[in-house]
């Protein structure tokens, strides 16, 4: 081996080591082993009633109309796609979205908890992203709290007679942001600062997550509107069965 070859080999090895050390971690979910065991259990227990509720409401929906499985699968797949896309953000780090807003708007918040858990399990087991011990906490933030806010915002917007597309956008965006607020809160409770306690930690974690997530939440809102437009043009019977579109309403109306 010549000196030059050895030099190249050394540089290549050094580079690969450097890049190998950078943890393959991406935003959003609380990392495996990063919550104390008691917290893991508490968050897990909190999730149980919601998941059971979600299971029953999914079952009820399917008993009523078997064909709805297609739209449910699509909403689940939407979460799959959206939460696998890591997007660069203004803070110079990457993060990904939740995608749970769509399901919440279409079916109500409860069934989304089931869809969310499937995605979280996939990522926790195969991708070392999120984790099994933190599954409860992550389920609560992404598959329960986020969708509930989305659903609430959407209903409120409809009540206030806001344009339907704008309502969907706001619901998905705010749901995404709220997921991160909950994540920050969960971390803050687990790691209170010495000075200022939980509040100081909460502000610190929010400071890390919020600026990164804000533009992504906007993208999520946009993508959710797009997929709803697609569904409204091609899946009218299903949306009517869900009560998402009224019988007379054929196209998304502005006012």
């Amino acid at each position: 081996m010549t000196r030059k070859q050895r030099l190249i080999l050394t540089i290549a090895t050094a580079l690969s080591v450097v890049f190998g050390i950078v943890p393959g971690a991406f935003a959003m979910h609380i990392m495996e082993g990063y919550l104390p065991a008691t917290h893991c259990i508490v968050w897990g227990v909190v999730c149980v009633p919601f998941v059971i509720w979600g299971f029953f409401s999914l079952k009820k929906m399917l008993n009523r109309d078997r064909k709805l499985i297609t739209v449910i699968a699509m909403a689940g797949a939407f979460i799959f796609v959206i939460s696998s896309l890591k997007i660069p953000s203004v803070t110079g780090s990457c993060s990904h979205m939740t995608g749970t807003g769509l399901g919440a708007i279409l079916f109500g918040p409860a069934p989304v908890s089931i869809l969310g858990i499937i995605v979280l399990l996939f990522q926790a087991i195969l991708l070392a992203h999120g984790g099994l011990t933190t599954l409860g906490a992550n389920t609560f933030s992404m598959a329960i709290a986020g969708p509930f806010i989305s659903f609430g915002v959407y209903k409120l917007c409809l009540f206030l007679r806001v344009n339907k597309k704008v309502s969907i956008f706001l619901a998905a965006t705010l749901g995404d942001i709220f997921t991160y607020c909950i994540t920050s809160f969960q971390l803050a409770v687990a790691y209170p600062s010495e000075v200022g306690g939980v509040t100081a930690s909460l502000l610190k974690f929010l400071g890390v997550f919020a600026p990164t997530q804000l533009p992504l939440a906007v993208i999520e809102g946009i993508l959710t509107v797009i997929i709803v437009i697609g569904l409204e043009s091609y899946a009218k019977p299903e949306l009517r069965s869900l009560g998402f579109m009224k019988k007379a309403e054929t196209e998304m109306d502005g006012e």
Partner: protein
Amino acid sequence: MKNKKNNNKRTVIILLILAAVIAAVPLFVLKGATFGGSDDAGSQMVSQITGGSYKPWFTPVIEKWIGGELPGEVETLLFCLQTAIGTAIIFFFIGRFYERKKMVKLSENKKEQVEDDNSR
């Protein structure tokens, strides 16, 4: 009706471009940024608050199975797989819905034609 459909098409195109721009702009504006995960930032914050003493008490199962960290390329593969599965499901159904709408329209047209013929 036709007009509205075109409107939707335009909205979708504009929204897609907007989403792409929001995603791409940081890449061009923040030249040289590492674009690591904000999980990283999160764990750094944890060690900052706890004074660097915290060690995760559980390692991801896949890292246990393969006895080390998931190689970057494999991780990319798995993320791609996730995207692919999701996209496949969404567009399989969109395709079915699309054809169904066409068929419904076709059969409606036929029915009308038969009725027209009958009334004549």
